[in-house]
């Protein structure tokens, strides 16, 4: 296991010793989950012993989430058996799971923004006196739970006024409210600072001592090394291996996870940096999610932006596409100043818009294909042509040229290896990876000078991932500029020619190819004091 700057500190009271070898509290036997069109989990075997941290490791879309959702009662398995403490059980609902002693903290938050921290904490299991809430009691319990976890939250705060990290804390507190036998943590540190992470790990250690079995999902190597006892690797919904921590080297884990060696995944991209395409100067956005930040992207290069969730990296790309409210700064594209808060020229005070940017050759591929990317209940054909219907190859005098549309989209889909290759199928009936291909296909039917990819491989299998990387290479080597916004560190390290690292709305570092390594990038991710 490679060590990073993140080695456990001596002051850390957490004891991550070897787990006890008791009978497993949780055992999954040949569990499968079939969704329409995809087999999300295929014949999975998995167990958790009391007092161990069992890490689930795999790419986005490998089936980890589906697996824990079945344990937590969100979905029922299509086939297979689940045993709790040796007894076969059928988990009917999240509520039922909690009664059986299974608590989960999901990646996607299930908080109600209009309610307070306290109300969210006890939602669905309020202490009552007949029909009336025991308000005083609940308030005391809420304070107690938060204090025990050391979270700096006030029970009366409205959830909608809190940050993402604080939302995460509430979710964790919800799971800790009762004393479970099994605790599921799905990337709990994704938006926590280092200090908050330390606190969480201390908690995990104390849970272990109490004999609670913990299922822990993470992408971070250093966390695996720090708290894991065993690691189970999944790929494309299938069980690959369960390894003890001692045998788990980083290289081995990555190989098991992807089924390939690292070089096979990331293509070599020639750096042919030419003229400046996009220059963003001193950009500040509404709410200061981005503050006085400057970046530039040239033709023929891949530039990355790395950083934690909510650091503002995505917003920079969105602002360039005209979908964020700009407070100040200057945006220039292909030598044309499109926005300048300091200029007296009225033309450069106007809001940017997607239409304006598309027409000039900038394309933004959003991170969330369900919410912003695709019209899920419509066909791939309609989706791919949607941004380009004004072009004469798709319409003449605003009447659709449907034959052209069909042949162009068919052609793009073949190049993207869309599977199944049926462009008249609705987007929602494709797997995540193929939806992502359709999303990228939207950009490929136009003439684009600069592509902004926002988390292009979230929830995508390795095959699609390799393909998407190859496309990025081809686009770049054909002379386009690429801005790659990503939370996936290997992507930043292996694909980009240079990268910016953002922290709390500001560009904190600008690393050239030679300086791009995990330790270097990560050191800019967190607060300075703890680095």
């Amino acid at each position: 296991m490679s060590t990073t700057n993140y080695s456990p500190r001596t002051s850390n009271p957490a004891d991550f010793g070897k787990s006890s070898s008791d009978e497993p509290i949780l055992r999954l036997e040949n569990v499968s989950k079939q969704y329409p069109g995809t087999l999300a989990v295929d014949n999975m075997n998995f167990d958790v012993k009391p007092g161990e941290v069992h890490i689930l490791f795999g790419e986005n879309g490998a089936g980890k989430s589906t697996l824990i959702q079945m344990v937590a009662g969100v979905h029922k398995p299509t086939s297979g058996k689940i045993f709790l403490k040796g007894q076969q059980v059928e988990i009917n609902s999240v509520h039922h799971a909690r009664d059986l002693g299974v608590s989960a903290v999901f990646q996607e938050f299930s908080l109600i923004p209009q309610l307070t921290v306290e109300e969210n904490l006890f939602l669905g299991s309020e202490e009552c006196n007949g029909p009336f809430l025991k308000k005083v009691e609940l308030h005391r319990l809420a304070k107690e739970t938060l204090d025990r976890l050391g979270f700096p939250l006030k029970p009366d705060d409205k959830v909608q006024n809190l940050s993402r990290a604080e939302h995460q804390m509430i979710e964790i507190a919800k799971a800790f409210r009762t004393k479970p036998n099994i605790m599921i943590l799905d990337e709990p540190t994704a938006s926590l600072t280092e200090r908050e992470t330390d606190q969480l790990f201390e908690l995990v250690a104390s849970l272990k001592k109490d004999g609670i079995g913990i299922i822990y999902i993470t992408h971070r190597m250093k966390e695996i090394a720090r708290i894991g006892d065993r690691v189970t690797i999944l790929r494309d919904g299938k069980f690959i291996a369960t390894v003890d921590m001692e045998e788990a080297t980083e290289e081995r884990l990555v190989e098991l996870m992807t089924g390939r060696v690292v070089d096979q995944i990331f293509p070599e991209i020639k750096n042919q940096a030419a003229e400046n395409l996009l220059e963003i100067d001193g950009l500040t956005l509404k709410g200061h999610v981005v503050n006085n930040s400057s970046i530039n992207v040239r033709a023929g290069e891949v530039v990355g932006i790395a950083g934690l969730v909510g650091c503002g990296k995505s917003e920079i790309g969105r602002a360039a596409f005209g979908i964020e409210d700009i407070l100040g700064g200057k945006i220039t594209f292909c030598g044309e100043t499109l926005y300048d808060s300091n200029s007296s020229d009225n033309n450069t005070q106007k809001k940017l818009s997607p239409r304006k940017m598309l027409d000039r050759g900038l394309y933004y591929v959003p991170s969330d294909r369900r919410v912003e990317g695709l019209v899920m209940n419509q066909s791939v054909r309609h989706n791919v042509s949607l941004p380009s219907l004004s072009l004469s190859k798709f319409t003449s005098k605003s009447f659709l040229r449907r034959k052209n549309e069909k042949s162009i989209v068919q052609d793009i889909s073949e190049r993207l290896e869309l599977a199944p290759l049926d462009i008249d199928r609705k987007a929602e009936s494709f797997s995540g990876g193929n939806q992502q291909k359709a999303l990228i296909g939207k950009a490929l039917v136009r003439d684009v000078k600069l592509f902004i990819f926002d988390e292009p491989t979230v929830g995508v299998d390795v095959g699609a991932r390799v393909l998407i990387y190859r496309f990025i290479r081809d686009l770049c080597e054909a002379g386009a500029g690429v801005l790659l916004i990503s939370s996936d560190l290997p992507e930043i390290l292996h694909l980009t020619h240079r990268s910016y690292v953002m922290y709390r709305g500001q560009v904190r570092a600008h690393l050239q190819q030679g300086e791009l390594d995990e330790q270097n990038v990560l050191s800019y991710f967190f607060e300075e004091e703890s680095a």
Partner: protein
Amino acid sequence: MNTKTTALEAQNEKNTLSPSDMMKRAFVRAGVLPWFLLIAVLIFTFATDNFLTEGNLFSVSRQSTYLILVAMAQMIVLLTAGLDLSVGVMFAMTSVISSMVMVNVWSGEGSGWGAIGLGCLAGLGCNLLIGGLNGIGIAYFRVPPFVMTLAMSSIVFGLALTITGGTPVYGMPDAFAETFGYGELFGFPIPVLVTLIAIVIVYIFVNRTKMGRYLYAIGGNIKAAELSGINTKLTLFWAYVISSFITGIAALMLTARLESGESNIGADYPLLSIAACTIGGISLFGGVGRLPSAVLGAIFIILVQNGMNLLRVNSYLQMVVIGILLILAIVADNYRQKLMLTLKD
């Protein structure tokens, strides 16, 4: 090509399926409407002696023209995940304004075509204004369509009553009613011809134009549409304007049929048009639905009303039946969605 192969596959599958599975598949494929139509036709054919006569079917087709037009108008906004509850008062306003203009402009002599033209323009213009205001409120001020069009109903109905004092307006040129109410061309009633032409135009608009495609995209996912460079606000605005234009045409023809301008017509149309679309499988959540289904949905409702008239069911009970059918259609469609998942095509 693809549809051929899937049809073949389905054929092969069907050969090995049990009858109940075949029924389920047919239900999933075709939707609720064909079954509703079949059941209605069967019931009325056996329960009455004159349902399946040429004369009766002819009158069904004539009666259904107005609802078909309004259902198409409703469908256009439903596709955008909108709703138009003001289609009813659009009838009232168009009727009142067009008739008053005709009555006041017409000298009482001659054919009065000039007055008819002016009246129609005034009526349609009013409707476009209502639709435009709906569009501005919904697209640019983000008023929920439900509230915007509900409020608009109150405003417009109030105005129409104020203008007329609630009494009908008589004295339009005879040519108006003779042509647009009762006229025939090539043996077809003119309202039926107008409706047929409108169906063709709206079909082309919805399926063959850029704008039609944008309606579906906005209803399916407005954010994705926006990020695809579509001017969603302007498109939404036009959807309400175009929709009001189609409703306006129906309103003019109904005014001609009634030979008077009335402020209390059209009250049924919000419910009936939404029912027609829903029974035809047009999603209230936007982005899903086909024009022929909306048209058939409208015909179905008129068919049921006609059948009930023949059976001498009183109009109050008819309201009960229509309401029940609307709910049943949604329940049946939800069940169909569920079946679709279990059968996984």
